[in-house]
């Protein structure tokens, strides 16, 4: 069910929740869907609190699941745990405020966080329309990613992530194989990728917290640089190279294909900044493996996004168009797996 912001019951439920959570009367001033967020819905929520823990006018974001789901990724509660952990670690991310697991309040579970300023629109970030230096932004992103990767299991406060897999690469490969098998259409390039990935699988490494969807479009920035990293629903314990490979995937360069690090900077500049910030050495072959995995994973996610529209009945042209994006992934797979 989509969240119906016009429903009197949902608004009343939300107002009651805000009052109970803060101990003060709350008046909802704005409740408006924010752009983006194919997997989760984000709503701009401006509230006047008459006292309590958040006294005054507050700019918040209400985050909840979309009408149909991908069938994987963290639930609201687990994502909230991750946000709490990263925010506490000083990583640029929205401050999580409240979690509501009771589906009766607005129709489904949701969480509330502080709204950050800045712009997440990929084309404006990549084109430089926000102003500011791209090398500042890439250095900020590299530092933030290094900080995320400093969080390592075991962490009781991150129980929602489940146990760390002994071999993150093998686990991801098995997951992709299973997703692909469920699709009714033949995908020879994806099958080729599965074989290549199995053949060149890297040795397991000590897992760290990975964002899982660390890319241009999933962070807020302004002329001064990075403001906050968004969309943590794919976070998991994994190989840090997974986030690096995903960030560099061709699909996330938004027209600036030659700037391989998210359409923002040359790959070498990003890797150097990450190595300096993290103290880790990036292994080029391992990175290549995870970039092929990124292409395959985005391909199978695109197929599932397509099915949310074609089979799940979610009326979204964006989702329908995503069904035509596997060709980009196939291009990247073939390019990356060219014989040495």
């Amino acid at each position: 069910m989509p969240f119906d912001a016009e429903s009197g019951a949902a608004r009343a439920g939300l107002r009651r929740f805000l009052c109970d959570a803060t101990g003060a009367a709350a008046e909802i001033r704005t409740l408006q869907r924010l752009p983006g967020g194919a997997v989760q819905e984000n709503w701009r929520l401006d509230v006047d609190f008459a006292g309590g823990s958040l006294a005054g006018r507050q700019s918040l974001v209400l985050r909840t699941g979309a009408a149909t789901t991908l069938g994987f990724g963290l639930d609201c509660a687990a994502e909230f745990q991750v946000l709490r952990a990263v925010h506490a670690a000083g990583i640029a991310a929205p401050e999580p405020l409240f979690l509501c697991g009771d589906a009766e309040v607005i129709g489904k579970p949701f969480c509330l966080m502080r709204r950050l300023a800045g712009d997440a629109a990929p084309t404006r970030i990549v084109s430089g329309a926000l102003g500011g230096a791209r090398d500042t932004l890439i250095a900020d992103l590299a530092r933030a990613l290094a900080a995320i990767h400093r969080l390592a299991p075991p962490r009781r406060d991150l129980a929602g992530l489940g146990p760390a897999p002994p071999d993150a690469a093998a686990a991801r490969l098995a997951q992709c194989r299973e997703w692909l098998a469920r699709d009714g259409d033949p995908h020879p390039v994806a099958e080729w990728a599965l074989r290549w990935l199995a053949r060149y699988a890297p040795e397991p490494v000590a897992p760290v917290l990975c964002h899982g969807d660390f890319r241009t479009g999933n962070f807020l920035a302004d002329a001064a640089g990075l403001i906050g990293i968004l969309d943590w629903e794919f976070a998991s314990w994994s190989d840090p190279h997974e986030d690096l490979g995903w960030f560099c995937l061709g699909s996330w360069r938004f027209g600036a294909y030659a700037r391989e690090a998210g359409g923002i900077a040359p790959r070498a500049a990003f890797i150097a900044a990450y190595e300096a910030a993290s103290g880790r050495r990036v292994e080029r072959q391992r990175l290549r493996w995870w970039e092929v995995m990124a292409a395959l994973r985005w391909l199978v996610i695109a197929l599932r996004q397509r099915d949310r529209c074609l089979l799940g009945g979610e009326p979204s042209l964006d989702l329908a168009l995503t069904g035509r994006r596997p060709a980009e992934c196939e291009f990247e797979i073939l390019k990356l797996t060219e014989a040495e």
Partner: protein
Amino acid sequence: MRDRPDGATLRAHAAAALERGEDPALVARAFAIAEREAAAGMAPVEAIRARLARRYGEAPIETLLAQLAAEIRAGAFDAEGPAQAELRRLLWDVTLLKLAESNPEYLAAARAVPI
């Protein structure tokens, strides 16, 4: 061979999206894919089908692609050599055809950068 939704289905989704007031840029992109697909017609698909038919015998394209996918999955092309080289050529040809219809801007940008 083409990814779903096909051009006609995309057109229908785009028309509905237009009525819902969705992003006009997305609507334009959907119509453009449908137009490129219609302009290309079935000739490029038939050319790929004919190449596959030489290996597997006459059958519809989706059947042949499923056979190819199964062979890849079984490891038939793991070893470097002529069979793998031919497979790579075929996969590239299919991919470039699809990308030229679905996202020619991506293809142009990617091709401008040396591999």
